[in-house]
């Protein structure tokens, strides 16, 4: 039985299913044939593992050679584009094949099918485009094609989220996790290659068409060699605070300290996404905890606290310890006018890596929830059959409610943090991004107090040359 017949026999009657429109519904039914061999052909090809060096080294020399004239640049761009043209179909094919291995019933879910179709169509488009990229026009055309495809994939993650939520009972949690982990990693790699080709082309184009020397020497496609985390944190913080204000009416401050002048080489969109996710969690938790505790500017410890009012600082009998509980001088503690203690972000520059620590006073995560926060969590759907509910985990303070979801999705799609709205996927996705270039992310919950997150990001330099994308 082909998937096509399966699709049509599952004609969906409701037109308002999540965010698939009617036309999209029809497309979903028109799915690839069982007998199409091309995918298998490509999937069986060896993945030419691109190392970071390959991806960047080309771009790197391209940007530093710009004074050599556009010829040199063009050559580099062409190389990357050709590489993308060759490599992307292979990776897409593998991804498609992995999706084909999902249980049949899961594959018939309209959201999953839609994602599948997206990838399949992208695969077709790229393989249909000319294999030879000889000149600027070819390059421009190819870059435009890629750009369109990348844009069309904007909603993949939310779609997967919804799809797997609906398929919760058909697949074991570990299997879902494994599939999604692999898929997301593959997706990151694919986008990295595609975006690199697109960005390089745009950079070059911009440089050509503008008379002023481009000020972005330090940007190499999707990589920024002089990225300042402090700046990015500030940007993400204001974005998140705005969201919070819209949703709750107030928000905490975000204090940035440590080695704030740190710069390093990284992919800004990745870091942006990670920071937005983590700050969103912290900020929202802080506000909710303040509400829960009755925190206010006059009552920084909350209404229920039976804490004795203690002097601001006092030295105990021995001079080794000073109690600095209500330290108004300490901006990492001082509650703002809304009674919210700040979220503290500390930057540290190590030899080969940058560590960012985010601390909040959001009350922490309870033990039961803690084990689930890294799940691709599809929890607390009150009515199992009512799958039109949000995929977010509503009982955890770190889940996202629908207003937040809608607003942040719009904002996310506006380009900040890339077109990935990690809704309900937030923490697992963040961790995958953090680990992508050999970094890591750890979350410590101090239940009743707050959370600390440690983000370790390896500097993207020669030492990572052999890291495979």
């Amino acid at each position, binding site marked *: 039985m082909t998937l096509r017949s399966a699709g049509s026999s599952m004609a969906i009657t409701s037109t308002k299913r999540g965010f698939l429109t009617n036309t999209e519904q029809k497309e979903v039914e028109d799915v690839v044939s069982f007998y199409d061999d091309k995918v298998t052909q490509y999937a069986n090809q060896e993945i030419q593992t691109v190392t970071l060096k390959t991806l960047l080294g080309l771009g790197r020399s391209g940007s530093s050679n710009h004074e050599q004239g556009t010829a040199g640049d063009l050559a580099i761009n062409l190389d990357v584009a050709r590489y993308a043209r060759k490599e992307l179909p292979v990776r897409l094919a593998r991804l498609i094949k992995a999706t084909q291995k999902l249980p049949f019933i899961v594959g018939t879910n309209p959201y999953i099918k839609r994602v599948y179709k997206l990838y399949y169509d992208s695969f077709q488009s790229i393989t249909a485009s000319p294999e030879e990229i000889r000149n600027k026009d070819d390059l421009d055309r190819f870059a435009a094609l890629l750009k369109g495809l990348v844009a069309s994939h904007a909603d993949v993650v939310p779609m997967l989220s919804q799809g797997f939520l609906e398929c919760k009972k058909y697949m074991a949690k570990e299997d879902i996790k494994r599939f999604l982990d692999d898929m997301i990693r593959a997706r990151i790699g694919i986008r990295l290659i595609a975006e690199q080709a697109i960005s390089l082309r745009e950079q070059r184009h911009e440089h050509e068409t503008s008379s002023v020397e481009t000020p972005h020497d330090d940007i190499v496609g999707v990589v920024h060699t002089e990225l300042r985390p402090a700046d990015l944190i500030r940007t993400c913080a204001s974005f998140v605070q705005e969201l919070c204000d819209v949703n709750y009416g107030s928000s905490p401050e975000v204090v940035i300290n440590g080695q704030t002048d740190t710069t390093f080489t990284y992919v800004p969109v990745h870091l942006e996404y990670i920071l937005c996710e983590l700050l969103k969690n912290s900020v929202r938790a802080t506000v909710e905890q303040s509400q829960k505790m009755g925190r206010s500017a006059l009552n920084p410890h909350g209404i229920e606290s039976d804490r004795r009012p203690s002097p601001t600082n006092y030295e105990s*009998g*021995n001079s080794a*310890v000073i109690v600095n509980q209500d330290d108004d001088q300490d901006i990492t503690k001082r509650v703002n006018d809304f009674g919210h203690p700040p979220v503290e972000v500390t930057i540290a520059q190590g030899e080969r890596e940058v560590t960012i*620590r985010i601390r909040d006073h959001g009350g922490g995560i309870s033990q039961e929830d803690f084990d689930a926060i890294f799940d691709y969590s599809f929890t607390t759907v009150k009515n199992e059959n009512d799958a039109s509910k949000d995929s977010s985990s509503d009982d955890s303070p770190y889940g996202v409610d629908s207003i937040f979801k809608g607003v942040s999705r719009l904002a996310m799609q506006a380009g900040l943090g890339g077109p990935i709205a990690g809704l309900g996927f937030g923490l697992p996705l963040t961790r995958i991004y953090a680990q992508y270039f050999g970094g890591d992310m750890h979350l410590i919950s101090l239940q*009743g*107090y707050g959370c600390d997150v440690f983000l370790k990001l390896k500097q993207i330099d020669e030492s990572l040359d052999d890291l495979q994308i």
Partner: protein
Amino acid sequence: MPNSNLNAAPAATTASAFSPQSSPLFKMNNPASIVKQPQARRRYSPQHFYQNRILDPYVHQAVSPITLRQLVFFGRNMQEDKLLKSANYVRTELPIRLAHRIRDFQNLPFIVGTNPHIELVYDLYWQAFERIAKIPEIKTLEENEAFCEMVKGLLNDHLVVIPQLALGIMECSKHIPAAQVDHFMNKMLRSRISRRVLAEQHITLTNNFNSPNHMMTDRGYIGIIYTHIKPKDIVERTALLAADTCRQAGGGMAPPKVLLDGNIDAEFTYIPDHIEYILYELLKNSMRFVMQNGKRDPTTGELPPIQVTVCEGTHEIVFRVSDKGGGIHPEMESQLWSYAQSPARLANFEKISKMAATVQEQVAPSSSSSSTLTSTSSEESDRQEDENIILPPPPPTNKNSTYQSSESTLLLDRHAPSRAQSAQKSSFSTTASSPQQYKNQSLHLGIGLPMSRVYAEYWGGDLKVFTMHGYGTDAYAKFCKFGNIYENFDV
């Protein structure tokens, strides 16, 4: 076979060093034969192999782990029959736990078992096992007294276990992979804590029962457990100790200050010793790093302070120790929790003969050579006379009123005439003023963290350390509040 290092043990120790045939312990070695065999040959004799049979019934018995709560409920309102019940519980439980560990030793690769340090510990365990297993049911208070004396002696003798084990296992590191080393050591340490908790709790209960001072129980001290632990007090105590240690080790350089915030007045039930050991290690590490790498404030010239935050949740309490000491170097970071050490540290282990792995052991004696610290939280009446009790504070009848109530913090008179001698009567006190103790605290043995973690995990807590290279380190020590978690040791 006896390690020559042990024979060079300082004079303060008495029955711990091995002097072969003359030791009364040795006489217990050969239950089936009255002929004294040289100890070296005992373990390789066929007799040993066949005698091993007596271990079997114990190995096959399940251990009965307990919770803190059970200990507390049991320890309140002590009566004679309850005390005897406790004695018999210890009497039957200890050999079972010992037997399980002895079996672990027997499962080590043969070559490892022939290492003299390992052999020594193995023999100690065997002797302890045989001695306790032989004791018949305890039916009177006098029998209980004798039992307590015996157990105290054993605890004392076993103070050599940790350094010996560590030394032996490190020497064998070429025969067993590092992961196995760590696994073995963790197992041994967990079991050791479990036996000591049992033994010390019972001995302390006995002492309290004997002494007219039942007020200790009323005030929340149940054996070695304290039901009103205040994070503030405990942090202040350990910060002081750590600061002293670091000041001495740093040649007089002032250590960084410790700032304290969070739910400092939360109260919970726990064994103070355990928490203090961990906090002491963490604070000491932090101070050390800050003193080495910390950037002084340009205006005040002070080192960046260490921030301790107490976080109270519904089921747990977390102490977060946060420093700006530059972070742990990546190479060290991978070895953080490992017992397998560098050769330099190995040499340090040879210099110490005894290790109780308690905070008391670590304290630097003051210039008047009085010991600053004597007992654990037990309240033996003789020890109450000591001037310098750190924890918990003695009851008001104590004529040494350098101590105020437990609410206010400790005012420590470290220069008061020493009562160290009476401390030596106690088997728990290992801070007799001997050069040994100076060495213990200034030597960098490098196993403080893995041992702290074993302590933390013992009643269901944990210990995590995260570092930010180039900036500082955060450590999180979590403890369960309600004492309803069973002991965590391997059966």
